């Protein structure tokens, strides 16, 4: 069913597991349009026309998607809430020596034994209270009624300082190296409490005491309201004091149902008959018969009748006669299936137990043991004894003294002695998977169509694919398939159980990592200044940076154009702080940089800067930037803003893993310096006015040099490098000085027409100038040879990626080359992604536009692109495939503005 409304809505919830609260809103989902007129009930009449795989076979035209929404609606798949989850969730980590999953009798016995050794114990229970089946089953432990013994255990555990007990906490997954995920549903009574808490626990030993789930019996009409599991009848009585019917029939193939029948009798219910499929009357059968209950041995329920709920059922007796019995409750027990999910997830392979007719845990792969019903120990005395012994052993294996304590003694035990009854023959729908409406006939059809592997069977019929993941249906399906194939159940196999054990809110997995907390947002030191000056921010990698600074009445594009013009004509001020900065220091620093750059750095003079390319071992360009020599053994490697972290880690990897003998220290210092870039014809005048204590004249400090000293009285490193093609000074200062120096530059700059410049204009300026932008103009295939850097192969020494550039594929002449594209018609518009039409009709394109924009200086669109054989085609006119027809463009060297690069030397 579905509970809650609006954002709080949750779907596919099991009705019996919801705690009732005042004002709870619930709707059924497994029937459409309504419970009284379920379209699936109409399907019942058509059942023989809608077999397994029907939908796959029928709704092929025009395609499945046309029909899927209607089918899913009728299939009762819930609707997700359409609003963000308003709840909060937490995540916690824990370590313990022994983690015990399940606080039934076996789990409690294990916890007591483990705790007595002094080990750190965690006991987790998915129910709100401890005790498991002992809460509602008759039975005495250590001479006390179950409930009293449970309370004693609870009190003792609560008093143990090293024990943590979590209720309403389900173990959802079992991962490598004994890591488990637990979901704790937090008591909603505290308003500030999160709705749920996801625990990640690392345990030295794990004891699985997850119990077993009763199986239904597969017979015609087993889905009629009024039919329920025998243990559920007993649990309703024990846990809630609810009698599920007035006049019941019990139908079983094992002894456990007799205990449920006795509880039902004791609570005042009347039993019309117990139908036991086993031909021989068991001791339990004889016992209850003596108290006046009719027991039909060798019989089977073959049909149920009544609308909307059960009123009568048909029983076929051993001799073949069929009798009718009036009843409003049919309690069934087809045996018990150990809850093996966690054992499976830990890597264990369950094995078939012929005597118990179910899967039981196989050999342990991780440090875990199963005890109690989940290990096939269905007798209370057995579960208690093994639980206590395993708890003591687990603590010992976790490094604590072995402290065997006497196991709790149980005087009353429920017998089992099952004889499998996988399917009762008869006409009508006999459900195997109640949630996904898979019947015994569907399994037979799948078998006829050769979907016999359990994994195929599951996907063809959808058996076990609901939110219950086959908890009640898997073993019956294995049994039925084995009968159909006339082979032992042991060879039929079992589908894997996967995380999570039960449905889990996505919000619980996300925890606090949502919204603003999903990923740390990196802001510039001057974020507030940019904001106050009208910046429009955008995300660039992890950074939030100004895209442009629109004035009143300006669009973003207009601002970009104005800012770009200011750089060309006067001076722009740009916050380049995220630019990657890595110091490389040591006697082998120059040798190392010769290996990591495609071009040589060891011959760079102190005080000079050089643009360089870094390649990966495939010869592909991964980053670019300016390298500056600070001293003989000391370099500053500049990277792109996006590459700052990645390149520093990459340099470390080469030093630690390959060139371990090189004496080099790599220090990422990106955050140690903020960067003010002044760019434009007035940049030098502005900087002089701010005040520098070193010579910044074009003669003394030409392009591609650097100097250190005071700028505006503050310590700074100033680099003459340019991204825009204009005279530029990149001023590196400590973040603590950033605000002051920026303000000084901005104030003093007013007389020189200084304009704040955002990323948009910055990118446009470099596109005009034809500079490469890694990741925009290049992709994961672009090599230096493709961008006209063939000279790197003239070097005498090795560098990362060099050998790859010699491969035939890298030397091919028809590779994509980096070129400029000059539009023939000045009115044409070009955008990134426009393909270049190929003259070869068999080929789609010859390349594409990688950077483009309207140049306010040239008054036309400018573009860069990757073009097949591009460099050999300079001068050729090509056709770009535009939105409204082809656009003619002439292939040029990159760089529409100042192609000779003269302005930067001004």
């Amino acid at each position, binding site marked *: 069913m579905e509970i809650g409304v609006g954002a709080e809505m949750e779907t596919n919830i099991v009705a019996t597991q919801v705690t009732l609260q005042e004002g709870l809103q619930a709707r059924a989902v497994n029937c459409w349009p309504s419970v009284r007129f379920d379209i699936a009930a109409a399907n019942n009449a058509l059942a023989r026309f809608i077999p397994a795989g029907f939908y796959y076979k029928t709704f092929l035209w025009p395609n499945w998607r046309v029909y899927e929404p209607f089918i899913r609606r009728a299939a009762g798949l819930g609707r997700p809430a359409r609003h963000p989850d308003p709840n909060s969730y937490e995540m916690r980590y824990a370590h313990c020596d022994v983690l015990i999953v399940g606080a039934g009798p076996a789990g409690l016995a294990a916890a007591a034994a483990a705790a007595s050794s002094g080990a750190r114990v965690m006991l987790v229970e998915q129910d709100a209270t401890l005790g498991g089946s002992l809460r509602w089953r008759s039975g005495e432990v250590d001479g006390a009624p179950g409930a009293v013994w449970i309370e004693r255990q609870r009190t003792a555990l609560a008093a143990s300082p090293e024990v943590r007990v979590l209720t309403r906490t389900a173990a959802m997954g079992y991962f490598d190296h004994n890591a488990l995920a637990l979901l704790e549903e937090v008591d909603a009574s505290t308003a500030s409490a999160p709705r749920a808490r996801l625990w990640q626990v690392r345990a030295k030993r794990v004891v699985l005491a997850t119990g077993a789930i009763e199986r239904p019996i597969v017979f015609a009409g087993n889905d009629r309201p009024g039919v329920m599991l025998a243990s559920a009848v007993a649990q309703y009585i024990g846990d809630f004091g609810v009698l599920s019917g007035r006049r019941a029939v019990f139908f079983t193939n094992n002894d456990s149902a007799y205990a449920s029948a006795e509880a039902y009798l004791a609570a005042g219910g009347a039993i019309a008959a117990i139908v036991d499929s086993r031909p021989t009357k068991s001791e339990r059968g004889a016992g209850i018969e003596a108290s006046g209950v009719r027991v039909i041995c060798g019989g089977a329920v073959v049909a149920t009748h009544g609308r909307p709920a059960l009123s009568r059922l048909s029983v076929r007796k051993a001799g073949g006669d069929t009798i009718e019995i009036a009843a409003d409750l049919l309690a069934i027990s087809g045996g018990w299936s150990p809850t093996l999910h966690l054992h499976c997830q830990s890597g264990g392979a369950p094995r078939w137990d012929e005597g118990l007719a179910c899967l039981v845990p196989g050999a342990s792969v991780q440090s875990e043991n199963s005890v109690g019903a989940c290990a096939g120990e269905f007798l209370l005395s057995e579960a208690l004894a093994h639980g206590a012994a395993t708890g003591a052993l687990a603590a010992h294996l976790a490094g604590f003294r072995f402290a065997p304590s006497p196991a709790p003694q149980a005087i009353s035990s429920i017998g089992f002695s099952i004889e499998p009854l996988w399917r009762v023959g008869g006409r009508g729908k006999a459900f195997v998977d109640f949630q996904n409406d898979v019947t015994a006939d569907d399994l037979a059809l799948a078998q006829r169509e050769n979907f016999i592997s359990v994994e195929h069977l599951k996907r063809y019929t959808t058996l076990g694919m609901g939110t219950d993941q086959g908890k009640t249906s898997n073993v019956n399906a294995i049994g039925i398939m084995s009968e159909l194939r006339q082979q032992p159940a042991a060879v039929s196999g079992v589908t894997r159980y996967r995380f999570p054990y039960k449905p889990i809110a996505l919000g619980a997995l996300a925890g606090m990592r949502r919204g603003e907390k999903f990923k740390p947002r990196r802001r510039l030191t001057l974020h507030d200044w940019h904001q106050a000056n009208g910046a429009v921010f955008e995300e660039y990698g992890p950074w939030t940076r100004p895209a442009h600074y629109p004035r009143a009445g300006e669009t973003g594009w207009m601002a970009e154009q104005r800012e770009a013009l200011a750089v060309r004509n006067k001076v722009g001020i740009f916050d380049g702080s995220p630019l990657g900065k890595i110091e490389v220091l040591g006697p082998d620093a120059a040798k190392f940089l010769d290996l990591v750059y495609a071009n040589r750095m060891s011959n760079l003079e102190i005080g000079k800067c050089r643009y360089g390319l870094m390649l990966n071992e*495939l010869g592909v360009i991964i980053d670019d930037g300016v390298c500056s020599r600070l001293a003989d053994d000391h370099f500053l490697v500049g990277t792109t803003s996006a590459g700052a972290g990645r390149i520093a880690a990459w340099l470390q*990897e080469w030093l630690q893993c390959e060139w*371990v003998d090189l004496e080099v220290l790599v220090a990422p210092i990106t955050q140690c310096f903020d960067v003010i870039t002044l760019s434009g014809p007035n940049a030098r005048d502005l900087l002089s006015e701010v005040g520098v204590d070193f010579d910044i004249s074009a003669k003394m400090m030409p392009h591609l040099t650097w100097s250190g000293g005071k700028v505006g009285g503050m310590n700074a490193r100033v680099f003459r490098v340019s991204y825009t093609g204009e005279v530029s000074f990149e001023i590196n200062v400590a973040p603590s000085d950033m605000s002051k120096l920026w303000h000084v530059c901005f104030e003093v700059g007013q007389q020189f027409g200084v304009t704040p410049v955002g990323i948009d204009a910055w990118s446009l300026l470099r596109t005009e100038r034809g500079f490469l932008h890694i990741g925009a103009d290049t992709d994961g295939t672009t090599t230096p040879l493709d961008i006209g850097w063939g000279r790197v192969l003239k070097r005498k020494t090795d560098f990362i990626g060099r050998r790859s550039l010699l491969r035939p594929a890298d030397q091919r002449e028809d590779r994509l080359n980096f070129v400029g594209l000059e539009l023939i018609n000045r009115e044409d518009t070009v955008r990134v992604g426009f393909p270049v039409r190929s003259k070869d009709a068999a080929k789609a394109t010859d390349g594409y536009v990688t950077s483009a924009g309207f140049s306010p200086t040239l008054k036309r669109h400018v573009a860069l692109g990757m073009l097949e054989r591009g460099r050999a085609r300079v001068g050729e006119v090509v056709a770009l495939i535009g939105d409204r027809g082809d656009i003619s463009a002439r292939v040029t060297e990159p760089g529409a503005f100042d192609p000779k690069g003269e302005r930067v030397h001004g």
Partner: protein
Amino acid sequence: MLLINCPWCGPRDEIEFRCAGQSHIARPGPYDRVSDEEWARYLFYRKNPKGLHSERWLHDVGCRQWFNIARDTRTHEIKVIYAMTDPKPEESTP
């Protein structure tokens, strides 16, 4: 979620680490004496054993040091953790 005993920081969750795959791959050289095939083997050919596998790991959100792990790919059992410069451990016959 593996529990990895970083040689510098002690046992930490796998989430703090990065695995860079097979270790002990010698970089062939000098570059002008390496055949295309030898270079291709260095770049692309990797083992995918069922059993003991030597891998390079980085304690990325920690000490940022690289080291080797010999891991059983069937069980994820970590057999040995050793330095980048140490030789590959021999697989002991059980």
